[in-house]
């Protein structure tokens, strides 16, 4: 592994944490490509560092989101049943894949989600009628002066995407928000801010389910991980605060563009 200064790693962590939190992701989706492609860190060490910093950033963003009442805790609990199992399986499977397979899987995963996000950027998922019963898992969200009600649709889709998100998290060091947020928003009727907040709430648990395994395999490079985490924390807190001021539509489009660019770079690395 190349000698990298703690300051550079700190800055990398801060930048990815900021952008990640603004998009409702842990930031691993940008951290792993940056560490591997730009800084030459071996992909396994990058994934392990990302997983641990994802725990830090997701927990930090979760405190902000809980405070705003954006987290749908019941829905989060139900979906964590699937993500935690996925995270465990991904963490166990990770040691069986080669570097190249990891890069390719990473690229393909991002490309699919980017396309999905771009296609749905103009839709809304809330019901303006306040008398609608949100059901056991649904809820209400306030946006400006208005309160909207949403119901959770297609729970099995939400559960399977959460399982997949957990597996991707354990395998690639992403929190899995990259899969859950678009699916919850697109197919399950959950407003993007609630989807992002609830996903972030779950991500700490998802990442922890596989982080223990990386730790015991000796993949966690301590200095690297510490510097990245320390940068990611303030970055993600700032990002979570800023996310409220960003228009949801632009948020989705921005996410789509970034995903596609990163996807191509990662896939090229896996050729």
């Amino acid at each position, binding site marked *: 592994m190349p000698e990298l200064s703690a300051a550079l790693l700190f800055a990398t962590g801060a930048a990815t944490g900021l952008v990640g939190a603004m998009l409702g992701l842990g930031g691993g989706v940008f951290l792993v490509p940056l560490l591997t492609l730009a800084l030459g860190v071996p992909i396994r060490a990058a994934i392990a560092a990302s997983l641990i910093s994802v725990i830090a950033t997701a927990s*930090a963003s979760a405190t902000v989101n*809980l405070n705003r009442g954006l987290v749908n805790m*019941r829905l989060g609990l139900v979906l964590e*049943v699937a993500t935690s199992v996925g995270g465990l399986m991904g963490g166990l499977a990770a040691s069986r894949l080669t570097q190249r397979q990891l890069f390719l899987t990473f690229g393909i995963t991002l490309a699919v989600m980017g396309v999905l996000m771009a296609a749905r950027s103009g839709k809304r998922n809330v019901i303006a009628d306040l008398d609608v019963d949100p059901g056991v898992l649904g809820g209400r969200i306030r946006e400006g002066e208005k309160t909207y009600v949403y119901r959770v649709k297609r729970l099995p889709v939400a559960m399977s995407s959460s399982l997949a998100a957990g597996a991707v998290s354990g395998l690639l060091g992403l929190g899995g928000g990259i899969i859950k947020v678009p699916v919850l928003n697109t197919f399950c009727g959950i407003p993007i801010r609630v989807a992002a907040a609830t996903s972030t709430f779950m991500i*700490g648990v998802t990442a*922890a389910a596989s982080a223990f395994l990386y730790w015991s395999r000796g993949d966690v490079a*301590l200095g690297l991980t510490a510097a990245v985490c320390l940068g990611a924390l303030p970055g993600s807190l700032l990002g979570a605060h800023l996310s409220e001021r960003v228009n949801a539509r632009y948020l989705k489009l921005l996410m789509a563009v970034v995903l596609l660019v990163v996807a191509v770079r990662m896939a090229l690395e896996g050729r």
Partner: protein
Amino acid sequence: MSQPTALDRVIEGVLSVGLLCSSALLAAGLLSGRQGLLSAGVVLLMMTPLARVVVVTIDLLRQRDWPFAATSLWILGVLLFSLYMAWRLQAATA
């Protein structure tokens, strides 16, 4: 869902304490170059979500919200199983 509940506050507290303590350890480890502090910081960070699940589970059990308490227990079980697997892996490589 626009006002934080009492449980939201407790979770917020658990996460904040875990984050503050682990980042203090990580910063001290980086500045002093002591690996022990870095390890402790990383381990504490990995344990923070586990602590959150424990708190939520206890709260749901106290509320006698059985379906959701069972849900939370399942998640706790998965995390503990992962810890057990990690412990076995480490024992095998040591």
